[in-house]
């Protein structure tokens, strides 16, 4: 909240629990005052004129006044122009704030489908943890990367003032920093779907829990450990097997065995996917290895190592950063963005890979560099 704009009573707006909401509320109340002023001025003039110049007899005549005055009209066009430009700049500032990147941000993948939300965290060990509610840490920046598996959905957290569409076939991002914990707020924050998506659109709800400082890691460990703890408790020999998994094939065999053996436990462990392993398997199975190395060697196509986050320059001179949207389009539409130092020979994988498989690829490509980083850090 901008300190120079007094807030109106709480009944006008959602609670304010993030840095973005601070910007939004500041501009909102500024606009309430500006609009209120203009509205009251217009109505007051109208009422005064009506009372003062009311026609009392049908024979009354209007008084003669000028029919135009360019100076006056220019004069009353300018203050609104100045005001709207100020509002535009304030709005843009807040918008860039939530669209931009944040250093050391917590990254959360958000999957939407009819009519559920799924929030995906990656543990330092590369295990994905999938939960139906959003968990964040106070004062820690967060970037949500949204994707939908069917129709368009939209994620809205009123208390944080943020909203972004979850669109099938692309990855949208939104950034903010929660500033109030759930404990301070008295309850979790509501999270709603705001893009109409069919029958149960209005019950596509979830909650956001904002943990106190340091408590988020504890929660994540719990969330990722809980299924494994249970596995360890219920089936120690399977747990030992789980720890030895290095390929997706082994992981799938393990999961199949677990499903046959203990479906209930399988469902819990299933929340802990290993997308990088799936991506590694696809890398061999789909023939990617023929043209793309994973160690930096130049083959027919660029190496996947060092790809994540790198700047790409294309044959038409355009540039892009290798993020989720780029990798996706390079897989389904490879001929549209050909890196300038290579020949465009890759066939399209449109329709040959499912969305989760593409996600797995992205996770695999990211894992190549994270592995390298860890190697560098541990000489």
């Amino acid at each position, binding site marked *: 909240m901008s300190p120079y704009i007094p807030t109106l009573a709480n*009944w*006008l707006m959602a*609670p304010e629990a993030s840095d973005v909401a601070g910007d939004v509320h500041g*501009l*909102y109340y500024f*606009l309430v005052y500006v609009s209120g002023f*203009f*509205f009251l001025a*217009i109505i007051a003039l*109208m009422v005064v*004129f*009506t009372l003062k*110049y*009311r026609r009392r007899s049908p*024979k*009354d*005549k*209007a*008084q003669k*006044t000028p*029919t*135009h005055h360019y100076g006056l*009209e220019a004069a009353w*066009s300018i203050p*609104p122009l100045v005001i*709207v430009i100020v*509002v*535009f700049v*304030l*709005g843009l*500032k*807040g*918008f860039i704030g939530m669209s931009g990147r944040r250093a050391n941000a917590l990254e959360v993948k958000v999957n939407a489908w*009819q009519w559920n939300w799924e929030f995906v965290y990656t543990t330092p060990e590369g295990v994905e943890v999938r939960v139906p509610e959003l968990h964040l840490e106070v004062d820690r920046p967060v970037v949500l990367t949204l994707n939908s598996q069917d*129709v*368009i959905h939209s994620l*809205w957290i009123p208390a944080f*003032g*943020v*909203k*972004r*569409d979850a*669109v*099938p*076939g*692309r990855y*949208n991002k939104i950034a903010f920093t929660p500033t109030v914990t759930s404990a301070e707020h008295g309850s*979790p924050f*509501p999270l*709603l779907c705001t*893009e*109409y998506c*069919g*029958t149960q*659109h*209005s*019950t596509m*709800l979830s*909650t956001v829990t904002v943990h106190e400082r340091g408590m988020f890691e504890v929660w994540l460990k719990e969330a990722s450990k809980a299924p494994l703890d249970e596995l360890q408790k219920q089936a120690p020999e399977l747990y030992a097997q789980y720890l030895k998994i290095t390929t997706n094939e082994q992981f799938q065999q393990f999961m199949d065995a677990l499903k046959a053996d203990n479906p209930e436990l399988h469902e819990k462990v299933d929340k802990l996917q290993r997308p990088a392993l799936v991506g590694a398997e696809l890398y061999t199975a789909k023939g990617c290895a023929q043209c793309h190395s994973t160690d930096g060697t130049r083959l027919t196509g660029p190496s996947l190592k060092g790809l994540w986050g790198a700047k790409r320059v294309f044959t038409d001179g355009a540039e892009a950063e290798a993020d989720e949207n780029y990798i996706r389009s390079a897989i389904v*539409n490879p001929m549209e963005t050909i890196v300038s130092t290579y020949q465009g020979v890759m066939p399209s994988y449109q329709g040959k890979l499912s969305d989760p498989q593409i996600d797995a690829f992205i996770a695999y490509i990211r894992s190549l560099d994270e592995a390298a980083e860890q190697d560098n850090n541990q000489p």
Partner: protein
Amino acid sequence: MTRFNDQLGAFDHAAELRGDNYLTHSRGLMSWLFTLDHKRIGVMYLVGILGSFFLGGVMALLIRTELIAEGQTILPAIGDKTWEDTYNQVFTLHGAIMVFLFIIPGIPAALGNFILPIMLGAKDVAFPKLNLTSWWLYMFGAVFAVYAIVSGGLDTGWTFYTPYSTAQIQGSDVYYAMQGVIPITAGAFILGFSSILTGVNFIATIHMLRPPGMTWFKMPLFLWGLYATAIIQILATPVLGITLLLLIVERAGLIIVFDPAKGGDPVLYQHFFWFYSHPAVYIMILPAMGVISEMISTHSHKHIFGYKFIAFSSVAIALLGFLVWGHHMFTSGQSVMASAIFSLLTFFVAIPSAIKVFNWLATMYKGSISVNAPMLWAMSFIWVFSIGGLTGLFLGALSTDIHLHDTYFVVAHFHYVMVGGTVFALLGGLLHWWPKITGKLYHQGAAIWAWVVIFIGFNLTFFVQFMLGAKGMPRRYAHLTADALAELGIAEANLLYLKVGNAISSFGAYIQAIGFFMFAGVLAYSMFRGRRSPANPWGGASLEWQTPSPPPHHNFETTPIAHDPYDFDGIEYDEEIDGYVRTQPADS
């Protein structure tokens, strides 16, 4: 009193003697359905759009009744569908009917058709047969839309967003739109042609049939509004037609444009759709502003202030309207740069709109203001349009829009602009020109009471929705969600607010409904029992007040000579006829 004889005195008398006017000129249903008379076509449009308004209004009452309390209240589950599906169909039909069958054709096709040629002193529009074709296309499109309801329903929202609207259920567990998508979009496609043809007709008429003495800057401002509207109708509507055609063939499984699973882009649809549908907002509001300019000046008996600024602001709004469609898509993931440009251009639309409001006020200054029913509608237009316009600032600004997008704040905003703006202007304009259209006066007191009830009901219904949206209620929700959120462990004061706010809003909707029935009653009574209206009951200065009420078949016996349409000098009250007559020629 000497009565100035400009085509009127003698002619008025002769026509009255013959008892001939456009209503009595020929008889029988066929003489209406196949008439080439722009006045009859205007009246038939009026019947069509008011019928659609009634249908859409019933849907609105169903929506508000459903939302009066948590959970299912009135809407039943139909067949294998849930009651939420029924709700989704009802709000879709409310939007589609109100937008495509009521508001877009509303003022131009009904009031415009009737008034435009008379204001020009012309016998008819430039292409009378094309005009009749437009009306038949309108009816044909309306039949398609109704067919959509019975042929499997429609639950996409009036925006038909892909991929929800295009994809078919193919044995998957994904639920896509019901089967009414093709008929209703085909209906909207046909209605688009009706709109384009009306636009072509109006542009040709204004260019070719202006009377001697009427230069571009001597045209009544309503005609400037209609002209600007016609430009949008011609340039933007084809884009909607192509978009809907693409949607239809994709849904029929013939091509892929929007389905992301097969390489299409669903957001592309939003660009196409809003490229038409944002300018369409100005199709709705520009003629309304024209009506208000006429009413404010006429009922204040005062020359409109800043004629050229008002005229050019219509054109400016029409042109800027083409450049702002992306402001519907700030959350869609479009680039920051694109969003910034769309936001900035959106704010520029605020300036011509503000100019109009200031000019209307300056027109009232030192006027002779008649506080009658049409003037109250005009003044309340300024009230509601100011709220609608000012809340547009909240949605044009990027950061606040992100919070408010697709919430009840937006619902309230566009109802203030469209109901508050267009419907208030339409109903006000109807009362303003009713004596001209029917030749009958109506009971002023009763009409004012109907206005009071609708005005209070309207503000009660929609003002609270601004707060509901800002606090956290998304649009298109069958559930209030207060209980569902409480079950998830949310403990916020907002939850109570959701319930109370929605109950207030629903209560306001019932008050509005009563008001609209009162309004209909006033007009029905006037039609059968109303006093005869003089040619010029309000003391208007434009040409339509110089022909008898109702006008004869050819509007004017001889082509009148046009003067400044806002020169009220020499218009005097005549007690004998309880109306006004011109006693000296206006400035030319």
